[in-house]
């Protein structure tokens, strides 16, 4: 009986040691983040004024200000980028265009009087609703404030005029400061 006990104990010990030694962990691979949007850029173009491009980037302290003129129509193009790997910048806007039915871009202004509508180069979904990737902005009075740019995923409505009306999940919500002069 004693021998048996010893044998089993030895076996267990041997097993344990073997296990400890067999565990060598490999160095983990770095994760290629695929969902990431690191940068939102707004490009303001008009016939009379020089083109302005604002960029909102992750880990950036201050965002540049756009200076717009009253009653001047601007063609505003929004671009979403993944610049996490400087060697391979990815244009997420392309993905959004391909999945026009489940995405929506929207703008909310605070302290500003700006009207906006879909531009001629805008993308429309299967129902003909504009995605607002390209829009025409017309400031109506002077002032200073900001615009919040939204990218909405799987909106419950595609025809709303408020953020809450669109439903869905917010993929992007960033603020850009804007000044409007006479």
């Amino acid at each position, binding site marked *: *009986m004693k021998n*048996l*006990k010893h044998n*089993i*104990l030895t076996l*267990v010990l041997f*097993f*344990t040691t073997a*296990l*400890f030694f067999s*565990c060598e*962990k490999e*160095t*983990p*691979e*770095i*994760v*290629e*983040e*695929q*969902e990431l*949007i*690191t940068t*939102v850029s707004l490009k303001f173009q008009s016939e009379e004024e020089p083109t302005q491009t604002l960029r*909102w980037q*992750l*880990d950036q302290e201050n965002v540049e200000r756009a200076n717009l003129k009253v009653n001047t129509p601007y063609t505003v193009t929004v671009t979403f980028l993944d610049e*996490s*790997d400087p060697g391979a910048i990815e244009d*997420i806007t392309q*993905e*959004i265009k*391909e*999945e026009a039915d489940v*995405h929506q871009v929207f703008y*909310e*202004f*605070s*302290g*500003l*009087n700006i009207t906006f509508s879909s531009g001629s180069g805008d993308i429309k979904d299967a129902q003909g609703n504009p995605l607002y990737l390209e829009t025409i902005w017309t400031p109506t009075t002077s002032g200073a404030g900001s615009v*919040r740019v939204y990218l*909405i*995923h*799987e909106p*419950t409505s595609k025809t709303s005029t408020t*953020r*809450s009306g669109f*439903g*869905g*999940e*917010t*993929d*992007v*919500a*960033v603020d850009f400061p804007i000044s409007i002069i006479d």
Partner: protein
Amino acid sequence: MKPFCSNSFLFILFLGFGHFNLQGQLCTFSLRGKVVDLHDNTPIFGALVSIEGTNFFSQTDEEGSYLLEGLCAGQITVVVEHPQCRPLKKEVKIYSQKEYNFQIEHHINELEEIIVSESQVESQNSSLRESILKGDQITQFSSENISEALASLSGVSLVQTGNTISKPMIHGMYGSRVGIVANGIRLRDQEWGADHAPNIDLNAFQTVQLIKGAATLKYGGDTAGGIIVLTPLKKKLENRLFGSTSLNFESNGKGGSVFSQINKTTAKGLYVSAHVTARRFGDFKAPNYNLSNTGLKEGSVALKFGKTKIVNGWELNYSRFQNEVGILRAAHIGNTQDLLQALSSQEPLRIDPFTYTIAAPKQEGMHQNLQLSYYLTTKKNAKWKWDYSYQINQRKEYDIRRNSRSTLPAIDLKLQSHTILGTYSWDNKAVWNFEWGTSGLIEDNFSNPNTGVKRLIPDYLKYEAGAFFVVDYQPNNLFSWDWGVRLDGVFFDAQKFYNQTDWENRGYALSFPQFEVTKMGTQILTDITLAFFNLAGRTGISIALGPSYETKLAYLHSQRAPNASELFSDGLHHSLATIENGNLKLKKEKVHKMVFSLSKTKGILKASFDPYVSYANDFIYIAPKGLEQTIRGAFPVWNYFATNVIMGGFDSDLAYDFNSQISFKWSTSYTYGKDLLEENPLIFIPPFNSTEKITFAPKSKKWNFEIAHQFVGTQERYPDFDFTYNTIEMGTIVPKKVEVSTPPKGYNKIDAFFSLYLSGKELSQSYVRLIIQNLTNTDYRNYLNRLRYYSSELGRNIQLQLVLRY
């Protein structure tokens, strides 16, 4: 011993019930049963069965049967004697007509030993009261998960993520503070994840024991909340083929479950058993709307093969559990503004028609266990036991993602563990019982990098080695004293990528430069090694105050190393719109707990009252600390911190038999928790709750009807973690308070059960049962449900259950 009646506290407790007479017990009970040979179950003729200290006796007939009549309620000592066997003494509690079988060792010359086999459950601990679920109580929950079954015990609550994912919470603690032991080995799943339900099928087990506190040192000293021990059916040495099948149909979710098991035992001790369970549900329904994408698929199988003999035995068992669970679609949100909108809406923001389809967001889990056990009994009533278990736990979580990546898991974790437990137990004339043992664990977590999402939990190796020693001293049936100690070493070796800025901002660059390996772009690879040494101990006494009253007092000390989530987690929670960060600077958590129990265990009125108080040092908790600006707007960041905490409360149970047909049960529990450093109430403490149950069964016992009412109060004590978010309304910025802290209102809920017994006796009974949950279709929300911001709890459910035993 006379019943101890002068305890004023019990009187206060029972005051609502008017008179009761403890002495008014009639001596009309009988004890019957059989005396059989332990080896081959052959009846033993001519054995003398007597009651110690009385003139009651009976001699067994050819069938081994005996009958003792005219017994009084209370505890008696039965002595079984036979010329060829050593006498056997056994304590039996008489409070109804009772059947009790004795197995005696016939071949005394071959083995100087007598083993008593009984259907009762071996108690894990004598100085702590344990709650037990067995047989029929488990079958009643056969279509639900293990946590829901446990929640029927007082002092247990559910931490939910929606309606199908739930974890048990004991005395306000959950996750790594609650241990689950199945087949004698700790379940190694991702218990640290609040939205990870225990991956185990309750149907495979015969009894569930719940011990509130870190009392079962054999299985670990880190479970300050409690430990849940799941035990399969005990195998008997007889030639038998038996099994059971249960079918459940449910109206809510338009689904059901099927469970079937089959067992074969032989007189030589060989046995084999198999069980299979399948569950399938579509979208569940709250009282007023469909809960879209809350369907569920689950399947499990278990196979067991072994040999049980007196001197030794072994078992090989394999089990596999797999599920796919939908997460409420409306709970997948992008940012704080979405959360704000969900909070202001009475209904989920997305309600689709009923479907069985489970789409993203969803969870897939799989757990496999391969276990080998061996035991050896030596001559001096000593027993060696070894268990080895290899467990694989996989969890995949799917989010709603762009560009058809929703089919690619966002979290893909594989946790493999090897556990070894060796114990030696010895009892000396049943007065001194000793048990000691050692255990070892190797845990390997692998986080698949192909998810395209930053790892929530990094790759790590964890080693644990522990040793314990417990003693139980029971000089007589009125007194027992036990104590135990356990030592554990816990070692982590993790390889994790940090954002370089996070690594610096959290002060890790200064505190842990030795962990840095290489810098890769914006990331830094670290190799983190941490060691923790934990000491756990307990001591307690149990004193019987007469034949029906019992008091127990126990002190427990537990220490727990922080878990992988508390140390390393790094990521965004979609349903809570929070960023969660682990903390490398956490120390081990130390908890002192005192538990007192006073109970009356016999008579037409049974009651127990169990108050407790615990003090925790370096208690790990998660709390919001400021907002982080992200591309999705401002996000609240939740970090893990350590604080000192005091918790206390009580659980109470009361049962009263009005007559042989009508009985009443009442249980309540209350938990108090306070953060001593922040001077705040603790978050996520269950509110006061109370359940009353009335059961009616006719004399024939052919059917019974039960109605239960549950009251859950409003949690008034909660920390205020509300914060402000700037929304834009009508062209101006409006700061809005995001009220995430306020608990929902209390509620009342009624459930009804009707059971019709078809054939057989007690454990082998077949029956049909009709269960109606939430009879009044009450619309309520639960504070401990992490998705309470989005939807109400389930509406009325009508369930038909058919249990066949053969």
